[in-house]
């Protein structure tokens, strides 16, 4: 299991992570200095 996981991690998760961060970080880690609020519109109530 472990080698397969490592393989997936390095060859799938890592490049995917790099690529997606270039476009948009789902974890919104970068601080928006000029933002006046960190509230976002609610996503509750929408189906998955």
């Amino acid at each position: 299991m472990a080698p397969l996981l490592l393989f997936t991690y390095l060859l799938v998760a890592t490049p995917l992570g790099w690529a997606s961060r270039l476009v948009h970080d789902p974890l919104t880690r970068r601080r928006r200095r000029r933002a006046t609020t960190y509230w976002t519109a609610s996503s509750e109530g929408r189906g998955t």
Partner: protein
Amino acid sequence: MSELVLGISAFYHDSAAALVRDGVPVAAAQEERFTRKRHDPSFPAQAVRYCLDELGVSLGDVAAVAYYEDPRLKFRRVLATLVGTAPTGFTSFRETLPRWLRADGKLRAVQVVRRELESAELGTVPEIVVRRHHESHAASAFFPSPYRSAAVLCVDGVGEWATTTLWHGRDTALRPLAEIRFPHSLGLLYSAFTYFCGFKVDSGEYKLMGLAPYGRPRYADLIRERLIDVKPDGSFHMDMRYFEYLRGQVMTGRAFEKLFGGPRRTPEGPLTEREFDLAASVQDVTEEVMLGLARTARERTGESTLCLAGGVALNCVANGKIVDSGLFDEVWVQPAAGDAGGALGAALAVAMDRGAARGHVGSGRDAMSGALLGPAFGDAQIADYLRSRRIPYHRLDPERLVDDVAAALADGKIVGWFQDRMEFGPRALGARSILGDPRDPAMQSAMNLKIKFRESFRPFAPAVLAAEAKDYFDLRQESPYMLLVAQVAAAQQVPVTETGATGIDLLRVRRSTIPAVTHVDGSARVQTVTPDSNPAYHKLLTAFRARTGCPVLVNTSFNVRGEPIVRSPHDAYTCFMRTNIDMLAIGNFLLHKSEQPAWSEESDWRAEIPLD
């Protein structure tokens, strides 16, 4: 024909089941009380069975089962986190992914719930409906509240993505307004400090809050500058470079240690001024954020009442600050504000969707029945147990029992009080409680050492007759679930004599007429008791008041350290015999320690109970 909905929360922390009939909570319990494993996260098989038994129904009589969060959406968040932190989080990846993906993994939580229900043979399993984590919290906060409409605020660690949500509740509908998403989480910020101060995440938060009054918030500015950017509207953004919970299985690491000048306190190690000040600082920031969020809730909804849930709503000091701010006319906090309450909330949300009404609105009361939603034991059951074990007892009529207990309490005795239905939620509220005299300056220490086998830096909580609460506490409203902290009233404060005490010895300094329940800053975690919320408890407080002039009792949960609160007569008797409780009142039976046979156990029970 009445309609039943069964709610379930499971597989993370503190599993629970709840049954709702026509929109009214009728039974609810945490699984830990049955399995005797604290915060048991496993499927709540026994709690489900109890809920159905309480109403004498089978699963076939239940219209729907509601699960308290959306496993697929939660998995997307977990995946986004694993991908988003690559290549630095392989350990987390290796441990987390299999847990989610295996046949009985978290991704298939709903199928697992179905399978578990089927194998329990409780009747035909109805459809299982999924509600979102924060919707479950919001529903648990609003639907049972006494208000026709209210602002609703849910703040916790994390469910799927949301960590903070704001809602507008009206009649039987909840409208989502805004949210703050993972990894930015007030609950996780508090947990990070809990971890850093050497306490257990998910349960030690309460201790950190109790530690805060000893310290000065000298790190609060540093927290605001480096860890969390707080806007005036209470919304916040955290700097993830200082936290480890995205990458690993711990909360904090090197960067956090560097910021606060050294490694974290080792669990059970000595408490120093640094932990006092860290606790005071994160508490200070938490209160600021909660006040900001409450202000936004007021502005966005225009409502004059607020409902709270989510783990952070167990921070009764912050709740007290919201009440004191006067932003709202009244605040109502769900007693099971943590994830156990999600079971109840999910069931309520589904019930309202299916057309249930909120019949209690307008009565001035909430729909929680004083949180007494757990199992009760009748006198016949108790007698059977006592006789089968040849336990010496006195069977008394209820008035005499209350009178004898009040006399014993006034005489400085410590009494185990086991009456009626067990509480739902983390606090003992006078159904499974250990009681004492709050006027006795030595009571805090005595109760800790005799029962919990530890010194504690926290005072106990007072239960007070609601009608006389204002004579003892600066409380603007009722606090039926011990979820508001208030200052002890000036009339009850006494001049403090200089003793030279420092650190946790400060708790021994007498500051009020009720020292056992007064914290070092003069505050107390109050429970107000009314005749309708808990009749037996109210009678006892009244009898104690008649004897002593004091309408307050010390209340602590009926358990020893690290163990769940007792559920059954057997649990209660075992705890009674293992500790130095003087007297046990269980239903209409009174047991004196001096009359009991010697207690012996084959194994060392203390070694079997994990540290809390």
